[in-house]
């Protein structure tokens, strides 16, 4: 052995590593609760006039000058000329970046654009600055003023209300159970999950839903994975027996993949709210007024149909009552 003998020329085996078309998407930061299935259509078609989504946004109400002037929070946004929203752009059903340079689409993205339009006027929907927040940074970024609001499938919980304010709820989600299709007759509700291996998303409220509803649950049998795709893979590969998450996302999975089925009805209500800083006492009232207006004008229903309605069967649900916080 002579350490410095000339070695054979390096092969470009790097290509082998580069050729693994894997993980690029997974390397993204965790998105918020539930990224829906890729159904190759619906909410990911991009907005714009003439699409159901674009029309829903264009039909949104506008705030009166006086209403904006009466709210310090809204006035600051108007003076700034843009609404800074914290959230994700990687959630299929709720907020997805466009690949064609259009504005993001989805239920949360729509609420964001409607709110921006409400404050900033006719072309306000385009004046949104989208800042990425993760589950880890949401409270901090809204509280220190980095973002004006957080609209990110953000469940209203008592612990979070101690740190920030919430407007809403603007959407009522429910936690449900998905199993392999062959097991669909043996599991119908959380009481059947005792002793089984369970999986949920790491940054969802599924963990608490399991703790509070599965009798004698064993914490060691609850796996958490960062995204919907991993959870479905774990379920199909038999690493877990049931997947607990937001029903809308689970229904999307069943629609895309006949090997998995949603069983029973949602067993936990999961109200989504708009996170606001406690420094702006008037913000929550102002946003609740806006939510009530889009509900009354039918815009909420049109937006639901163009986004969540694409992956969930049936009619739009009854909208929640803004300001009715579950505390």
């Amino acid at each position: 052995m002579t350490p410095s003998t000339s070695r054979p020329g390096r092969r470009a085996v790097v290509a082998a590593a580069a050729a693994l078309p894997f993980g690029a998407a997974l390397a993204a930061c965790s998105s918020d609760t539930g990224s829906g299935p890729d159904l190759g259509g619906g909410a990911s078609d991009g907005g714009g006039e003439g699409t159901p989504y674009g029309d829903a946004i264009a039909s949104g109400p506008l705030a009166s000058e006086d209403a904006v002037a009466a709210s310090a929070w809204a006035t600051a946004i108007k003076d700034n000329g843009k609404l800074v929203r914290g959230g994700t752009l990687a959630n299929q059903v709720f907020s997805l970046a466009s690949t064609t340079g259009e504005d993001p689409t989805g239920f949360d993205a729509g609420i964001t654009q409607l709110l921006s339009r409400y404050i900033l006027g006719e072309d306000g929907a385009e004046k949104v600055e989208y800042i990425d927040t993760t589950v880890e940074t949401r409270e901090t970024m809204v509280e220190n003023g980095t973002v004006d609001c957080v609209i990110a499938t953000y469940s209203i919980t008592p612990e979070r209300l101690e740190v920030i304010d919430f407007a809403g709820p603007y959407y009522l989600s429910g936690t449900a159970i998905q199993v392999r299709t062959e097991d669909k007759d043996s599991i119908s509700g959380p009481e059947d999950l005792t002793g089984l291996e369970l999986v949920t998303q790491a940054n969802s409220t599924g963990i608490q839903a399991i703790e509070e509803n599965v009798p004698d649950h064993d914490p060691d049998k609850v796996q958490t994975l960062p995204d919907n795709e991993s959870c479905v893979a774990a379920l199909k590969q038999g690493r877990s027996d049931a997947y607990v998450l937001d029903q809308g996302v689970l229904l999307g999975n069943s629609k895309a993949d006949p090997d998995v089925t949603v069983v029973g009805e949602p067993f936990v209500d999961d109200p989504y709210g708009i996170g606001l800083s406690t420094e702006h006492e008037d913000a929550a009232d102002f946003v609740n007024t806006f939510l009530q207006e889009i509900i009354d004008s039918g815009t909420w229903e049109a937006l639901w149909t163009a986004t969540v309605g694409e992956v969930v069967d049936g009619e739009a649900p009854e909208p929640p009552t803004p300001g009715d916080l579950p505390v």
Partner: protein
Amino acid sequence: MEAIAENTPLLLQGIAYTVALTLLGYVLALVVGTALAVCRVSPIPPLRWAATVYVEIFRNIPLLSLLILISFGLPDVGLRLPYFWCGVLGLTLSSAAFVCENVRSGINTVPVGHAEAARSIGLGFFGTLRYVVLPQAFRTMIQPLVNVFIGTVIGSALCSAIAVSEITWVTQTLNIQYAQAVLMFLVAGAVYLGMSLGGAALGGALERAVSPGGDSERGRDRKALDVTAGAQA
């Protein structure tokens, strides 16, 4: 603070998992990496090529992708390991590539004359490595191997993405519940910092212990001593 007080057992379990992942991954990586380095300097071309291919592949895959591949790709071809062992395997495969390169560059610091002298007194390939090259190479490898250890410590955090309940997973989970991100991640950060500093201190002690003559003064602040000597002159 209540988040910490109410969940001390969970946090301790998280730390235990982090330590276990790191130590298992690193120790196995040392074994595999050293074997690979021996292949890379061996006189047998196919072994050299195989080791080179291994290093280039596993050095260039992001660890997260590798962990996901092992966890959710392998079951499709019939190999389903528990998540924890998926984590250990991923850390081992990745760190071994770095260990291999460090060991190899350590070997390259030994003057060729030494190896030739060893051959001339009749030592074979393994004899040359064992008695002449590796003992000298080991000293120069310590600091780079400490870097690999720190990389393994930090890499273990990515196992939270494959449902291993190590300290990052625990802090993420508690944050969902308590909405205390800054506090929780300071806790996790302190754990990683403690482990990394511990590894570095151990490496430093080892380096002094094996420095020529076992003189504990050597290898420590020699530059600083030179500077003071200059100042006195």
